[in-house]
């Protein structure tokens, strides 16, 4: 069992190829034919300073544990990592998977301050810093967000965290067509409302816009009222509903059943064309249509659809050798980083 940095260094030195695994919550990422470096034993909160808004934690720590420690102090990870019940914090960062609440303040990249790593040569060092603001040196900590363990092994991560809001209210707006729901999200983008989350959910007919407001208990009712009036007036929904038991609404993967599940990164302008091509697949768009989750039967088919639309996807569940879908990721800058951090190409 890998329990510390030294174990990792030894593992890297002992293997010609290896594959990093956190807690394995995204099976499609682990169908690689290489020995797995299992980080699930590398756990624990190293340092948490609520008054500094900073948290340092070992990479294999269960997300649930991290989130619970923060919640005790009224704080949270604003990038809203997905799969809280099964993922590790390192895996959440390496796969850059965020839920709907990412809408308010940003993604993992916006909250990772620094990391301790072991690179492909077995060298251990830290990148980035441990304070909320730091402009010294190259920001390799940000680079590692989304890097899928292919450039360096993150052993410890330092985050900026924020105070959480005391309460939420959520609303559902129904539209006769997806285009109308998208238009409505555009109207909200130009408005003064600061939403905690804004998702677009296509239905069998039409689509829903799900919005979440967070803040003080005393002000929420009036804010919800004002928001609801604005949306009704500006976008003419067919139906408006304030959801009472709202927290379950925000499990953005709920109901996305099917053998394959993927995240897609897109711009809202690409949404309608993509959605038409996805016809039939279960899907939900988060981040006001800038990110999407698609469940389908066949990953090859999705790969093809995404490539045709000039988009990229990441398979979380499904049976394919490579989880990267759509447009190839090759990039000259990334290749040079790879040549520096993992010259032998050990990390796959």
């Amino acid at each position, binding site marked *: 069992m890998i329990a510390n940095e030294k174990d990792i260094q030894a593992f890297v030195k002992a293997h010609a190829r290896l594959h990093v695994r956190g807690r394995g919550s995204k099976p499609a990422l682990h169908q690689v034919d290489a020995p797995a470096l299992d980080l699930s034993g590398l756990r624990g909160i190293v340092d948490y*300073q609520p*008054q*500094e*808004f900073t948290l340092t934690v070992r990479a294999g720590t269960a997300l649930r544990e991290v989130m619970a420690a923060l919640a005790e102090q009224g704080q949270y990870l604003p990038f809203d990592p997905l799969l809280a019940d099964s993922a590790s914090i390192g895996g959440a960062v390496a796969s*850059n998977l965020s839920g709907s609440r990412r809408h308010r303040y*940003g993604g993992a*990249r*916006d909250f990772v301050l620094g990391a301790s790593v072991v*690179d492909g040569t077995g*060298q251990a*060092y*830290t990148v980035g*810093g441990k*304070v*909320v*603001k*730091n*402009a*010294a*040196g*190259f*920001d*390799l900590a*940000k*680079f590692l*967000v*989304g890097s*899928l363990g292919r450039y360096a092994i993150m052993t410890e991560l330092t985050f900026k965290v*924020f*105070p959480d809001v005391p309460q939420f209210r959520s609303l559902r707006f129904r539209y006769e067509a997806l285009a109308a729901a998208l238009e409505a999200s*555009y109207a909200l*983008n130009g*408005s*003064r409302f*600061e939403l905690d989350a804004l998702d677009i959910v296509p239905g069998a007919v039409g689509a829903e816009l799900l919005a979440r407001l967070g*803040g*003080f208990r*005393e*002000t929420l009712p009036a*804010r919800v009222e004002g928001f609801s009036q604005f949306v009704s007036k500006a976008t003419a929904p067919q139906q408006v509903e304030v959801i009472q038991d709202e927290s379950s609404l925000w499990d953005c993967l709920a109901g996305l059943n099917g053998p394959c599940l993927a995240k897609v*990164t897109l*711009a*809202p*302008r690409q949404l309608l064309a993509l959605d038409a091509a996805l016809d039939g697949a279960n899907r939900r768009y988060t*981040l006001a249509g*800038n*990110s999407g989750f698609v469940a389908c039967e066949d990953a090859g088919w999705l790969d093809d659809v995404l490539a045709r639309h000039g988009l*990229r*996807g*990441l398979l979380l569940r499904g049976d394919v050798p490579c989880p*990267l879908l759509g447009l190839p*990721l090759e*990039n*000259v*800058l990334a290749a*040079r*980083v790879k*040549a*520096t*951090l993992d010259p032998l190409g050990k990390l796959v």
Partner: protein
Amino acid sequence: MNRRFLGALSKIYPGERLLTRDVELLPYESDALTAFQTKPGAVVLPENADEVIATVRLCHEHSVPFVARGSGTSLSGGSLPIADGLTIALNRLNRIKRIDPQQRIAVVEPGVVNLHISQAAQPFGLYYAPDPSSQSICTIGGNIAFNSGGAHCLKYGMTSNHVLGMKVALADGSLTEFGGESLDGCGIGPDLVGLFVGSEGLFGIALEMTLRLLPIPELYRTVLAAFDYLGRAGDAVSRVVASGLLPGAIEIMDRLAIRAAETVGANYPDAEALLIVELEGEALQVEAEFTQLRELIEDSGAFEIRTAQNEDERARIWKGRKSAFSAVGRLSPDYIVQDGVVPRSRLGEALSQINALKRSYGLEVANVFHAGDGNLHPLILFDGREAGALRKAEALAGEILAMCVELGGSITGEHGVGVEKRDYMPAMFSEAELDIMLALRQAIDPREIANRGKMFPSGEAPALKMQGMHPLERQGLISRE
């Protein structure tokens, strides 16, 4: 400069955009860190990305070092020319190509001035959030190189948090794009935008960037609180942070900085320390937060509290803070602006150490800081006409940085390493860390021509000169407001 190289340059640029005569080069000899001055071999003024690309390729081919330059407001010598190298001045690449209010993005060229983006977005109810005090003059290319911040970075982050995509010419002339129009940025795969932002011009030149815009807050609530003891202002910050409020800005100024601000007519209360806290957002929410904030500040022992009742009063509160740097220039012939970070809870400790240091050096230090994120800006006053004064001020600055690292912080929060702080890099990073950064730089720029001599320790030191005004200031082209 090599004749063949100059000859090739003159095929790209007409004479008026290829500067080689001494008088033409003078305004480019330094940036806002005027202690360092170097004459470049030549300066070119490209007007489009193709010219920049051709120039970078030529530099690579001839192994001529180059430095990209925006408005030259770097405070760390980042845009200081390289002796006999080429300065590529990007101010003419200043087109805002597109504002897309529906997607809340702007696509711009690197020479666009920071504030112009917010001005262009304003009719749509949007703005570009990072607000360095130099925002009316500094360029987005410079902001990207340094991951610049401002007073309002606590809640929404620095430049890096607002860049979604980029087109870049790497130092060897290869072109690449990453990220795009999605608010998810790079989204899938490593965050190349995050890596490029803050690379201080050592990887190449950013040619185009897609930026995230935010809705202009419905309401700002700005409070100015006066304290008779600096430590009390610091305690007030801790209380605000512990309360669960997330203000857009938390700033502190000490007595000398307050006095300086008076020279620009700030009209602040006569105090040992001033605290500025600003809440922003939806009106109903902000009003409720404000009630809580006011109670916190009243309980923290402020002897005077002012609240901006309108946009005018808000601007007045900020004016003194935003012009603090230039105002200090009116108190002293010369000064060094420092930029270090400490953990927020150790601000008090840091300030008493700065006090002790300034006494032992016999120098005056004015303190202005982004208290919300522990980012100190000590302004070290001295008279450059006195022999050895600059060296002494630099030595004090160095001790302050060492202290920041010791307290667990950083040698720079937003001004970058540049030339000024490169020798402090080993205080903050281990040899292995520096080695990997250098290896990365060499993999990306094998000839080490992009902004050579910056960020990494060693490298020959350019001569320290007398202080004084920036060449552009002397010409009346810029001012430090």
